[in-house]
């Protein structure tokens, strides 16, 4: 009971939950570990941050055609354009759209009125390299999540990679502040696996779209995933509860400070930001599940190579 209460309060205060490698996109912000690049990356917004309440809906899933009639459909152009590969046409049902839109607006305000100003103040005081290191530190603490989910997906190389990363980064990486394991020389890349993806790899569909207040885009499956990840994230076990809350809050601010501008750019590019982010979220999560496998170092400059960069599946 206590834990549930704690979970609720926490969820309520923390924008970027991120039980996994990349920070969540709760309100708007993309994950810290993902780059701020020239082109704003939608994916960052698409991080799932599930909440417990939705757990019971887990079974109700099923890949319903989007209420929104999103993307589905053949592309029979009169001028002989080929069909878009079916896998590309990702859709999700959105029976809760009115609720979701309200939550979207709520998260949007939360970002512009609270999170962003706080993160900007914080950025002004703490230089970027330090904030990157703080991000690395939390990412290192999330290793158990990635390790466990690699194992659950029978990705043993991925699990070993995470184990070695954790050992290296916790020691020569000074408690995770730096990421020597992921550097050019060692090349052990972070394996972004979370419980939502594990469920996806077992064949569990997204179900329908949910936007949680504070936590952002999700679905029954990814909500369940987030609960699972909660238990494999050491910070969740901090006691007393307000210590945990403070740490998660700080994490959210730090993550946001590294990605200010990304959400704004995505909104700017969109004709309907709600739809744009919903689509980005499902495209991103779908791909994450599909490409499950050990993330290795891509070999640069191999013209004509026919294999996808990441998909060394088990």
């Amino acid at each position: 009971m206590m834990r549930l209460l704690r979970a609720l309060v926490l969820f309520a205060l923390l924008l970027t939950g991120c039980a996994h490698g990349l920070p969540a996109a709760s309100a708007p912000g993309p994950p810290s570990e993902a780059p701020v690049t020239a082109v704003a990356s939608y994916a960052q917004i698409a991080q799932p941050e599930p909440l417990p309440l939705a757990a019971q809906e887990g079974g109700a899933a099923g890949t319903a055609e989007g209420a929104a009639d999103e993307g589905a459909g053949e592309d029979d152009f009169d001028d002989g354009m080929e069909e878009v590969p079916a896998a590309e046409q990702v859709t999700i049902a959105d029976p809760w759209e009115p609720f979701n839109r309200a939550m979207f607006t709520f998260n949007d305000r939360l970002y512009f009125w609270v999170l962003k100003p706080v993160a900007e103040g914080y950025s002004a005081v703490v230089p970027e390299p330090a904030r990157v290191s703080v991000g690395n530190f939390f990412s290192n603490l999330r290793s158990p999540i990635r390790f466990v989910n690699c194992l659950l997906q029978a990705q043993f190389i991925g699990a070993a990679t995470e184990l070695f990363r954790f050992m290296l980064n916790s020691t020569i990486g000074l408690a995770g502040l730096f990421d020597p394991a992921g550097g050019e020389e060692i090349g052990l890349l972070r394996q972004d696996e979370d419980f939502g993806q594990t469920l996806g790899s077992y064949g569990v569909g997204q179900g329908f779209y949910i936007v949680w207040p504070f936590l952002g885009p999700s679905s029954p499956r990814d909500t369940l995933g987030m609960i699972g990840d909660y238990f494999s994230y050491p910070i969740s076990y901090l006691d007393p509860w307000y210590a945990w809350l403070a740490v998660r809050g700080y994490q959210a601010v730090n993550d946001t400070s590294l990605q200010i501008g990304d959400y704004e750019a995505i909104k700017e590019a969109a004709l309907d930001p709600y739809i744009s982010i919903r689509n980005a979220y499902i495209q991103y999560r779908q791909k994450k599940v599909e490409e499950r496998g050990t993330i290795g170092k891509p070999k640069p400059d191999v013209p004509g190579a026919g294999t996808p960069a990441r998909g060394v599946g088990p």
Partner: protein
Amino acid sequence: MKRTTKTTKIRSAIAVSLLALVLGAVPARAATPLETVRAEVNKVLEVLRNKSLKEEVKREKLRALYGEMFDQEELSKWSLGRNWNKLSESQRREFLPLFQQVLEKTYGDRILAYSDERIVFDKEVPISGNRVEVQTRAITKSKEIPMHYRVFKDKSGKWKCYDVVVENVSLVMNYRSQFNEILAKNDAEELLNILRKKVKDQKS
């Protein structure tokens, strides 16, 4: 005897001119998709890193490079999907530049803000028929983001981009979801209105 020599001369002259014609028209080896994208992205980076250029000039140059690199019509078709057929010929003519302006404003601002990135060109992966995905990564001090350019061979045989996939999210598919939503409830004229308004708002 003389005659034969003359014939031979004429023949070789014809051969040489034919060869020249062929060589002139078609490069010795057509550039691969990856080479094409690499060359174009490098030109963009060159403009961004040139500190002596004013922002206005940079925008102008980037616009030209966009035209070289992207096929706005193909990109629009993919973004509209089956809705492309709902637009009349004249509506399409208006749609193309409007959509381009929306993209230009958003991504232009974004691109101009960053220039310290390093781009690594990883590989090309066939999608289907004459479509290929060129996979790259943008690397900054601390982060890296996968950016995949989808190209097709246009009528002139040049590889042109019609989609960019940033961190697994396809740009055209993302716009398609929005256009579908809008066109499910409205007609094509309303879509153009929305675009016109967007362009106007962006200018102010």
